[in-house]
């Protein structure tokens, strides 16, 4: 299966990564190489094999519904690009 320039642009947009036309061309070549490698998987018949999503057969633990964390928003927001009154600022999304 080969991928096209429009695939690259669609995927970049889904991943919220800006790419110029020149970058998309360069990435296309490299991604084609990677997908060529990935294509080797298709030759194997995996009928009846359970997918393995994790290295250990583990089950999610439940914890008691109690407060375990302190409010540290000031410490955590210290590194934020833009904060006001304890809120993260982003460009206006609702007119």
């Amino acid at each position, binding site marked *: 299966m080969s*991928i096209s320039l429009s*695939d*690259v642009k669609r*995927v*970049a*947009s*889904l*991943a*919220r*990564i*800006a*790419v110029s036309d020149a970058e998309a061309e360069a*990435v296309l070549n*490299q*991604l084609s*190489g*990677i*997908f*060529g*490698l*990935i*294509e*080797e*998987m*298709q030759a*194997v018949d*995996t009928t009846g*094999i*359970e*997918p*393995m*999503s*994790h*290295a*250990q057969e*583990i089950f*999610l*633990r439940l*914890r008691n519904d109690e407060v375990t964390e302190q409010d*540290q928003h000031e*410490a*955590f*927001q*210290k*590194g*934020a*690009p*833009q904060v006001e009154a304890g809120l*993260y600022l*982003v*460009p*206006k*999304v609702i007119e």
Partner: protein
Amino acid sequence: MFNASLKDLSAMLSGGKISSVELTREFLGRIDALNPEINAFITVDIDKSLMQAKLADAMIASGRAHPLTGIPVAQKDIFCAKDWLTTCGSKMLSNFVSPYDAHVIERFNSVGAVNIGKTNMDEFAMGSSNETSHYGSVKNPWDRQAVPGGSSGGSAAAVAARMAPVATGTDTGGSIRQPAALCGISGIKPTYGLVSRYGMIAFASSLDQGGPMAKSAEDLALMLGLMTGFDSRDSTSLDRPVEDYSRDLDKPLDGLRIGLPREYFAEGLSADVEEAVRAAISEYEKMGATIVDVSLPNTKLSIPVYYVLAPAEASSNLSRYDGVRYGYRAKDYKDLTEMYEKSRSEGFGAEVKRRIMVGTYVLSHGYYDAYYMQAQKLRRLIAKDFSEAFKQCDVIMGPTSPSTAFNLGEKGDDPVQMYLSDIYTIAVNLAGLPGMSIPAGFGKNGRPVGLQIVGNYFSEAKMLNVAHQYQKLTDWHLKMPAI
């Protein structure tokens, strides 16, 4: 002193021959002299390190010492350390001063170990050469033309150049073992789930595992005992009793069955690496081990499987870098979408963007079954290969990397060439097994060769025993590069 074991350094500290402050100053001095060229550290903070050393000296004076009390430890810059710049090798986190400690950092702090600095790495641990770091390549201390391996290349180079006695690393597809091999040091990736991932910046969560890097197996055993243990903050942390990983170091190896996978000695393996690895294996035969021929038939598939699953998990994990809560934000944008797109485009390097795009693609509608599900099914076959092999042997041995360290820039901008060099390490992560690399001599260009030892789940004490017995007979692990 720069070549001393943890045991010896610890004895010097508790015997009052040297203080932690003095020891820390010695290693800081070495970093100051060597790091401008080697580039193993992204951040060094003399005041913070010396403050910790003072606290360690107080602990030692009060008789509360652990073997790692007062020992300088180089921390991979993937571990969040409170009030330390924590970049993960990325421009995206070039301004991120962590507000908290990773579990691993907490463990070292709890015994009074000294953080000697944060080590360079491939950006978000995505790379096998340390060339994807935003902070520049690391040079291999054995040969400045060569890469140190990756992604824990800074940690490996720091220990190899004796800028730190020990270091931490993380291993998603070989990132502890391969740089350990290429830099001539020892490193172990434990069974998945033994070392908490809390505060360890995520790449591919079902594969990521932290572990120690050091000169010898004996040192690794001491570190591993400290780094492992249950942590409720990591949903995949295993709740099992803490082990003494040094307990079996001195056991004889009579009757040990070593499996040699046919596929690890096939086409693609450099002759000089094969020669060194086979020489190491014959040392084991002299120690009473027997060799068993085993097969891991799906080895070749591990590369495509990994390069579907790891990017898929990465594309999800790295969606958190959006320029809103922390990290890099682009200067100019006209709306929210453009702010996301430009922040991520400018903040991530080329390899990280490629992997996010591959991951996004294989998870997207219409391709999920063909790629992601197929890779998960093959992952089970790969894990089954190992369980079959371990019916016939106690440990598996082979090369860690198909060649000695390659030259900086040698793999060019063809990602596939780079990915193929992970052939012997990746399957171990997919299966979740423990794996390690120890020095086993040098290739024809004078660059180190690593012997890989893979064990069954939770057999770290046995693997360290196997490695230690070899290190009692040989001195490859004590060799230092001419600096």
